[in-house]
């Protein structure tokens, strides 16, 4: 009898443990409600110098609170480095989640699949200003034909070069990719202490324009049925061109294979590189470096002389969380935060490039620095596959691994691109 009592106790305990430890799935606690007053919570990214941004945002909020009585908005600026964890946590726990968030545009598809973002297609189309939205920016908020947010700003990369070194060596600004590569080598040969063009094995978004310039692509197909195109001949030509820049004649593999985009910009800013591929958002970092006043920016050249290599259209969006209890208010706030006027103010304050073509044109007219970036955008940009698999491909370092395998001599372009394509297809296969 006493055996059976103990046995029963153990069984009960074991059963309790097993049922207690089933992994959690977040419920949809407040979805569907649409309160017209109360407090809205907003998460925006914390920039390096956040004050000007805060200023612009505060003005928007003042207008919003004036227009809607009995509403309050609390804004939290979250650090960019930990945004992934914060936003995941917000999806997991709707009660402590914000109503409106800023998010990186490569995350759109992943967040939609995670069930975190609200479909705002109807409001987006009814919003008059969006007729001027740049098509690539629109693509960056679209998944399966539905719109999940409003583009906030766009970031694009171009070629930074040292005017003093070019003058000293009597070089002209490269007009094609072949010229770019030969110019880089020439500088390295004349000045062995400098990288000709700083490149990084972990700098995915600096490498992609080379692939696109040769007519290659990351993936082909439709949403839901992507297939990697990295192992196609055109993409391989681009990979070949980019990886040919690693070596003692430009950027030694031993140091450059591990570099990220930030590392290459730092190398340029500290005067260790004659050229680098940097974004409009790198401006401040370069200005703060040793090369201030000794550099200029042009669009990254494409394959044909005089052409521009398609750049990656990075940037951020503003979205509404699916679980918001203030649907109407949150959507209105999103529109105000991403409106033409706010984007114009943000450009003046932070230098963020507007996503509306007309606002961007005006911006370029007042600030000559952004001209090469606006030209790059006007020449046509590319975007990563709008698939939730992209986040996984990006975070499991498929492309950096491929570049690093090639530049360290472990695999040739054909083998490395084939392996990378296989990994991408695996990710597309399991994530759609």
């Amino acid at each position, binding site marked *: 009898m*006493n*055996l059976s009592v*103990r046995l029963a106790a153990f069984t009960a305990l074991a059963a309790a*443990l*097993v049922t*207690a*430890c*089933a*992994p*959690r*799935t*977040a*419920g*949809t606690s407040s979805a569907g409600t649409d309160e017209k007053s109360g407090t809205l919570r907003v998460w925006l990214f914390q920039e390096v110098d956040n004050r000007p941004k805060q200023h612009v945002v505060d003005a928007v909020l003042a207008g919003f609170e004036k227009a809607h009585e009995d509403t309050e908005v609390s804004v939290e600026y979250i650090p960019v480095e930990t945004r992934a964890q914060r936003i*995941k946590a917000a*999806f*997991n726990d709707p009660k402590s989640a914000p109503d409106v968030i800023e998010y990186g545009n490569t995350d759109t598809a*992943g967040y939609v*699949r*995670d*069930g*975190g973002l609200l479909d705002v297609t109807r409001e987006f189309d009814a919003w008059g200003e969006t007729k001027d939205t740049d098509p690539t920016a629109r693509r960056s908020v679209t998944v399966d034909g539905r719109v999940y947010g409003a583009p906030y700003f766009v970031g694009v990369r171009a070629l930074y070069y040292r005017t003093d070194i070019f003058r000293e060596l009597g070089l002209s600004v490269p007009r094609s990719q072949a010229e770019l590569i030969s110019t880089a080598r020439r500088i390295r040969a004349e000045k062995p202490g400098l990288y000709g063009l700083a490149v990084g*094995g*972990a700098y995915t978004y600096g490498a992609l324009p080379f692939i696109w310039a040769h007519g290659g692509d990351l993936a082909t197909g439709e949403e839901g049925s992507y297939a990697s195109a990295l192992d196609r001949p055109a993409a391989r030509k681009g990979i070949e061109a980019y990886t040919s820049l690693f070596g003692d004649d430009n950027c030694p*593999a*031993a*140091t450059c*294979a*591990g570099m990220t985009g930030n590392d290459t910009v730092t190398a340029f800013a500290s005067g260790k590189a004659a050229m680098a591929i940097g974004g409009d958002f790198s401006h401040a970092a370069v200005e703060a470096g040793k090369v201030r006043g000794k550099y200029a920016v042009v669009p990254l050249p494409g394959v044909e002389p005089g052409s521009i290599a398609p750049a990656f259209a990075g940037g951020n969006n503003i979205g509404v969380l699916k679980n918001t209890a203030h649907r109407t208010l949150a959507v209105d706030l999103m529109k105000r935060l991403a409106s033409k006027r706010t984007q114009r103010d943000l450009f003046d304050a932070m230098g963020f490039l507007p996503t509306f073509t007309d606002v961007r044109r005006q911006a370029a007219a007042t600030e000559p620095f952004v001209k090469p970036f606006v030209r790059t955008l006007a020449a046509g940009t590319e975007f990563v596959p709008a698939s*939730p698999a992209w*986040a*996984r491909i990006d*975070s*499991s*370092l498929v492309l*950096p*691994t491929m570049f*690093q*395998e090639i530049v*360290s001599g*472990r695999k040739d372009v054909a083998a490395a691109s084939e392996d990378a394509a296989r990994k991408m297809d695996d990710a597309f296969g399991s994530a759609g």
Partner: protein
Amino acid sequence: MSRAAVPSGRTSAKGRRAGWTPWFYVAPALLVLGGLLVYPVCQLGLMSVLEYTQAQVSGGEPTRFRGLANYTELFADDQFRQVLLATVGFAAACVVSTLAVGCALAVLLTRVRALPRLALMLAALGAWATPTITGSTVWLFLFDPDFGPVDRLLGLGDFSWTYGRYSAFLLVLLEVVWCSFPFVMVTVYAGIRAVPGEVLEAAALDGASQWRIWRSVLAPMLRPILVVVTVQSVIWDFKVFTQIYVMTGGGGIAGQNLVLNVYAYQKAFASSQYSLGSAIGVVMLLILLAVTLGYLRLLRRQGEEL
């Protein structure tokens, strides 16, 4: 429990009391252990047989039972097998080096005068007290191709330690040994101090060399302590994360320096495949259990009581 089978009613009642009382005493410890150990391990095991990614956590898609599919996926993955092999090799090298350095320095401690002993102790305690991230960053700086003093001292020019697979592993191994030898050294030193002086004296009188004394006198007497530090080191070094993550930039050029823990992190958190990460965790747990139990069993068979 076999006592329950005794037929006499009186003995049974007494037996029951004796049976429950120990449980009553260990209940608090069991509760804490259950909460801190059993629950997470059970979660881990459960997650590893489910399809559980960010989409399931946030309710975008239903959680699905996958059976052993995560494990078959894992073992079909070339990279996983490679990482597993590298981890075992790396951990073994770390354990051997740590024990060798720790024991040698412990013996040295008993041989030197007070002042050098104090200096050595302080240096070791400093290494021990340094947070892993700080230690890794400092070591990385020491071996930096552009600014590091090591390359300059050795006349290596701008040799990049993190570029080659083995040089990167060697660099991390040095850091791991540096931050974990103090534990071995201090523990073994305490053990040596507890060995009666006459024994050592007798050995010395018999003309035994230093090595011979260690081999035939000290090591057998210190066995229980050595067992503990070995098991500890195996567990620590098998689970190295920070050093690899910081020093090789998250796994080295093209993932050449990945170890299981970093790989699991990449799977579970960087790409939100929690179930695959859990499966890696379970595999690690099983390997560590097997190694530890196997080691203890081996010792038991040699007739040692622990």
